[in-house]
């Protein structure tokens, strides 16, 4: 935070400073905090690797994982897999989120649609995405279609559920205010109901992003010929634990980065929903 206050400020009493300094060093500033945690875990991992407590094929050392990553990068599979997987996740997510928001707005607003669909959709929600993979393969083959289906289906249900609930919790006073301010139904919907539900919708979208990766890898693990999930499966066949670790870490970084971006965008768009 940039505080541009030029007025002289009382210096804190020196005695109070020492413990505060110590505490802030340990917990780190906000940006550095994750790095400290990663460094800590990496140090333990490296020590365990150097001491060779566990065989490399079971739990490879950090440097083996690094060289496996470089290897996959050099032979070009990593770039292709990343592009393929990200593309599938993005397309699946876009389809699922669009349908989810649209239908959520409808079930939240239109009683007939709600009566017809809600019980059924709620029944679908507990079915794990991975259980859909065999069906998706039968329907769409092992090409892109089945991946899009599994991802968009998973994303859809989560986004729908959150959107629907966001619509249910639109405070009554907002609606009353809107009506007594002479708003038409359409304007009320567009400028009151949707913004009021927006924090929930965004929570759903953020969950949807996480689930997109989850279900994508589930879909790629069986019946695919490219993608990060497929590469994981392939690494298993050759017992390349180092590659597996590399791919898992990449999936983790990818998911966390995308989540952060979505979170930031959400904060910008629903700026009033802070703290």
């Amino acid at each position: 935070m940039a505080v541009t206050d030029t007025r002289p400020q009382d210096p804190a009493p020196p005695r109070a400073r020492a413990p505060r300094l110590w505490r802030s060093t340990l917990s780190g500033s906000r940006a550095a905090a994750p790095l400290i945690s990663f460094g800590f875990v990496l140090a333990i991992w490296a020590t365990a690797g150097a001491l060779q407590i566990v065989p490399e094929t079971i739990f490879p050392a950090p440097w083996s994982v690094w060289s496996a990553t470089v290897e996959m990068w050099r032979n070009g599979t990593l770039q292709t897999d990343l592009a393929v997987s990200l593309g599938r996740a993005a397309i699946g997510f876009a389809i699922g989120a669009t349908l989810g928001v649209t239908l959520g707005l409808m079930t939240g607003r239109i009683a007939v649609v709600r009566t017809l669909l809600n019980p059924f959709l709620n029944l679908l929600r507990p079915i794990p995405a991975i259980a859909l993979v065999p069906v998706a393969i039968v329907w769409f083959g092992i090409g892109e279609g089945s991946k899009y289906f599994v991802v968009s289906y998973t994303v859809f249900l989560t986004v729908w559920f959150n959107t629907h609930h966001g619509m249910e919790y639109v405070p009554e006073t907002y609606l009353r205010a809107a009506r007594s301010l002479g708003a038409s139904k359409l304007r009320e919907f567009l400028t009151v109901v949707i913004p009021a539900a927006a924090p929930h919708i965004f929570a759903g979208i953020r969950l949807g992003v996480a689930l997109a990766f989850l279900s994508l890898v589930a879909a790629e693990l069986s019946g695919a010929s490219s993608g990060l999930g497929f590469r994981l499966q392939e690494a298993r066949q050759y017992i390349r634990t180092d590659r597996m670790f590399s791919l898992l870490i990449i999936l983790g970084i990818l998911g966390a980065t995308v989540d952060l971006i979505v979170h930031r965008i959400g904060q910008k768009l629903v700026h009033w929903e802070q703290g």
Partner: protein
Amino acid sequence: MSDMMTGRVRIEDLVIRFKGKQGETTALERTALELEPGTFTALIGPSGCGKSTLMNAIGGFVAPSEGRITLDGAPITGPSAEVGVIFQQYALFPWFSALGNVRFGLKQFGLPKSEEVDRARAALAEVGLSDHADKFPQQLSGGMKQRVAIARTFAFGPKVLLMDEPFGALDAQTRLVMHDLLLDVWQKHRATVLFVTHDVDEALLLADDVRVMSQAPGRLIRHYALSQSRPRSFNSANSDLLEIRQEILHQLRPTSALADVH
């Protein structure tokens, strides 16, 4: 002036019941009431007596179980911009700035953007918030939020203005400021005001007519017509006001309070 002629609210044989888990409960006993155009009526009564219910019925949020409510002869069938509402919890839209909130109420006129903005700015200036037009509600204090709400409602010129304990969430000091401000704005716009409160002093300082409601199920039990000039205060020069205050406080004191404890 034709302005002064509109805004007559007539409540005829109104009864409001709610269906609850334990069958029907009467929220409002048979009530008749007429609000003269351009007058300021305070409605006072113990909590849960049905004063908010009466207000919600005039606002069109609650349908009458019996009887009817008319505005200038036409039955009120739902919320409309003829009846403005100011809520205790402000009900400002947090995704709009103060200006955006005021503009929301002006959209119904389909004005050119510049005119809409000008009118909204003028409304905010009237409540002393010119410098805060671009702030969002969450950046404003409680008193400022309620000023935005007042500006938002007066800006589109409703015939009737309902206020449900609008200053209930504010501290005593801010309340006094808001009283002056409200009277000021009201005297300019002259809507028919129904002001629900449980604060006797507030009612006596603001209103032309003070209506007292009984405990639930609510009935209107007393009417005081006040002609004292505003701004009013409680001092020896206003001994009649002090007398009325004593009387109302006495009426509101729950005689069955001890019985209720058991």
